[in-house]
């Protein structure tokens, strides 16, 4: 499942990076994002003192009815946190991957100053590749017994819905090309 948004907060609590990766992420102004980043930094600090059972780290996972938020704090004080749809299981692993890419593309960029907002194109590209789920590749299907004049066809993601209807009609008829009008609804 695709991550909704990623936030990176520096040691002082200032937001240094924010990106939305799915259309479901709320469209907020930059100031709102800054506020969210600092608020989360504060909450993260407070929760470590609130823990009823011994020394505790700050917020690691926050679950609501519609989303989960996971936070990863490095020993150097940077927080990576991301929101994702409920049911996402690999968010922690994704955040570790973001940390790897931060080390590779941000820290190795000689023009990047530590603790400042991140403006590194390679980092953006690497994150898109890592965090955005690619849609499934096209599935090739052909009928088991090919009737004379029949044409094998492929099912692509954009016509998956259409293709499913075509599939049903193809099995129902031989020698005719399937039409949506004749398709049986799945």
């Amino acid at each position, binding site marked *: 499942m695709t991550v909704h948004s990623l936030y990176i907060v520096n*040691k002082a609590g200032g937001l240094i990076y924010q990106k939305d990766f799915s259309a479901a992420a709320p469209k907020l102004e930059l100031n709102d994002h800054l506020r969210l980043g600092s608020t989360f930094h504060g909450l*993260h600090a407070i929760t470590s003192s609130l823990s009823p059972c011994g020394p505790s780290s*700050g917020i690691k996972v926050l679950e609501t009815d519609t989303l989960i938020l996971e936070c990863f704090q490095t*020993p*150097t004080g940077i927080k990576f946190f991301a929101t994702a749809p409920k049911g996402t299981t690999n968010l922690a692993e994704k955040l570790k991957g973001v*940390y*790897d890419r931060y*080390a*590779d593309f941000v820290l*190795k960029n000689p023009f990047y100053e530590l603790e400042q907002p991140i403006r590194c194109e390679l980092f953006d590209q690497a994150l898109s590749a890592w965090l955005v789920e690619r849609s499934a590749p096209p599935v090739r299907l052909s009928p088991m017994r090919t009737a004379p004049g029949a044409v094998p066809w492929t099912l692509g993601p954009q016509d998956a819905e259409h293709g499913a209807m075509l599939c049903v009609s193809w099995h129902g008829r031989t020698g005719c090309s399937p039409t949506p009008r004749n398709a049986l609804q799945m």
Partner: protein
Amino acid sequence: MSSSAKLGEHVFSQVEKINSELFTLTYGAIVMQMLRDYEDVNEVNRQLDRMGYNIGVRLIDEFLARSGVGRCHDLKDTAELISKVGFKLFLGITCTVANWSADEKNFSLLLDENPLAEFVELPTTPVVSGSAPPSKALLYSNVLCGVLRGALEMVQLSVECKFVKDVLRGDDTTEIRVEFKEYLADEVPVGDE
């Protein structure tokens, strides 16, 4: 093999590698140019340490990301990780931790091999007449001291590092002395034990 040595081998196998000779010769060219530019060997030593510091403050995050280690419990853990995982990850070598002080605050790192100093001979003639020659006064691999200092500062350990022995200057081994100064408690990220 201890667990940190195993971790070191493992992360080393995962990471992309470059030609070590390219690395050695590039570093040598940098030091040579600095000697020409600054002319004063002590200034070159200082600048190498400063360069190392700037590298170290960024290197630490890559180290933490690749090795996945958390906080160390004490300085002995830190020394173990530096020598078996840190050096392995970035230089492909491991070094030995030795000469612990009585209060366990200072230790030495003994390097059997130093990739930065392969094929290097330090000139015996002074750069500027009257000053000490590089073969006596230049801390060729001083960038390593800076890296250690910078990296440890980012995890709230203030240390001082210096070369006490260097094969390039005629000693039998290469030894870096690491002295723990203080724990920067006010900079610990909240929520870290």
